[in-house]
């Protein structure tokens, strides 16, 4: 597109755009840089760069809180729930998109209703439900709630995608002797990979970063995920800023690394469904 823009307008646009890069990134850079500074350095000048580079504070972090446990719990919970969401939602979406019984429309609507439910408002019944199921202080409480709350948006995205696939593919596969399960698993799943990618990214980020549900469901330190683990750290080592910055950096790092590896997919994934 060519909208004639004067040089000065252009310059202002560049200036503002890159100025805002500073606003976006500086706090993150500050977080990483501060983790390499001693407390004395931080308190004397919060803005200065670290004078030496040492990983001691990270070693200390590993000793004072069970960060390894937090990390492992986060991985277990996020990966398990994302896999369950992807498989179950794809199965449900396949059914809704491909078969026309009287109830498939109703079923699809029932899933869509979930898009409007702010599930955190059901936390009291959820808490009592988990208590009755004996799942408090268990990673399963988190896996189940993340899976359940991720299903509506995932069914929505996947159903839309299934409907774009030509039905002839399945018919051909069936003529070749595949049963419904084989059609789904061997023919359709590979085809919906782009939409599955979106589903995985959306749900992985929200499971990985959530701290509301573990705050309610998990009391035992060894079972905490990284975000609530940060609450433990900030509760006990309030004045050790170097350690706090190190904890924040380590919490943010895995997601930032994954993002940098696949930034386009991340940005497309997270905005999918919003502007369709």
């Amino acid at each position, binding site marked *: 597109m060519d909208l004639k823009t004067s040089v000065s307008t252009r310059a202002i646009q560049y200036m503002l755009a890159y100025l805002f*890069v500073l606003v976006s990134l500086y706090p993150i850079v500050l977080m990483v840089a501060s983790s390499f500074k001693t407390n004395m350095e*931080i308190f004397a000048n919060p803005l200065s760069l670290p004078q030496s580079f040492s990983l001691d504070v990270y070693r200390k972090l590993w000793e004072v809180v069970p960060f390894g446990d937090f990390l492992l719990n986060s991985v277990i919970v996020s990966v398990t729930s994302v896999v369950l969401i992807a498989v179950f939602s794809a199965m449900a979406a396949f059914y809704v998109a491909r078969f026309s019984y009287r109830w498939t429309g109703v079923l699809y609507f029932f899933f869509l209703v979930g898009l409007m*439910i702010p599930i955190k408002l059901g936390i009291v019944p959820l808490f009592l*439900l988990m208590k009755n199921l004996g799942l408090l202080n268990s990673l399963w409480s988190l896996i189940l709630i993340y*899976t359940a709350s991720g299903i509506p948006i995932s069914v929505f995205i996947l159903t839309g995608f299934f409907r774009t696939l030509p039905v002839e593919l399945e018919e051909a596969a069936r003529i070749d002797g595949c049963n419904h399960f084989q059609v789904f698993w061997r023919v359709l799943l590979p085809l919906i990979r782009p939409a599955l990618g979106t589903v995985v990214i959306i749900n992985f980020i929200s499971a990985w970063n959530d701290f509301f549900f573990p705050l309610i469901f998990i009391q035992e330190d060894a079972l905490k995920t990284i975000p*609530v683990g940060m609450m433990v750290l900030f509760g006990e080592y309030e004045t050790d800023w170097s350690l706090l910055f190190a904890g924040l950096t380590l919490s943010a790092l895995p997601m930032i690394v994954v993002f940098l590896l696949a930034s386009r997919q991340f940005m497309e994934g997270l905005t999918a469904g919003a*502007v369709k």
Partner: protein
Amino acid sequence: MANIGVPKRQTITPKGRFRWIVHLFPLPALVIYAMFVVYPIFSAFTYSLYEWNGIKQGVFVGLKNFLTLFSVEPFNTMFWNAFGHNVIYFLVEMIVQNGIAFALAFFIYRKLRGSGFLKVAYFMPRLLSVIVVGFLWKLILNPNYGALNTLLTNLGLGSWAKPWLGDPDTALLAIILVNCWFGIGFAMLIFLAGLQSIPEELIEAARLDGAKGISMLVKIILPLCMPAITIMTIFTFIQAFEAFELVYAMQGSMGEPFRSTDTLAVYFYRLAFSSAGGGDVAIGLGSALAVVLFAIVASVSALSLYLMRKREVQH
């Protein structure tokens, strides 16, 4: 958009000996979703109609919890105090977050060099957990050793330095601005997608008719971008009325200082889970508040769903 070129919905009829198996496909999703999303929300509605002693359900009391919530001190004052903060949350995010995001999206749309990098940079904060965002900014905004006050002093603006989170006049605004920092990248991408979906012929035609600069922006581009703006407005509204994590991370469940940062969701958490407000947990009242909050948020997201579906049909 993905639906372009698909004439109509295609379906198949199950055949073969094991055709009943297809009915098992939606079951796992259905069971988990019904049990851990639909049932709890439904229960919250019924809970609000009962009296509660701690976590033990008492007798049916009809709408008494709602009456208490809106007419008995201190509950009603706390409700309206928090409600007002949610409204401010929404308005500030609309102006600051979405305003800046639209400007940035517009710059990128006009083909600034390095747009790939710009998008990644703006989006980066969105990757952090809200608790990390909250804790990080709490350190940055610290009155004694925080980076912001030091920066202001170094720039010769020392008189602007403040205990941002300790002062009831600035605490809420500080939290909302942190939320804007977190959300701008996402909003920018939504607006950019909206801008990029404007057919070039329309812009070209308007240009030939003499539209340029501000008039092009206001009369042509903004109206054509309305779908993206509408969706983002709805997202912002929902997010503002569900605001909990950031306030909790930065100011605790009491909405310190002096409830100046309290929001409905934080108030709900306090009623349902902490006895810090004096007395026992109040599940009946908490559930009533949840229902009210649900009504506010769900009606607006129903609208968003309607708009999304409508657009899908148009495509």
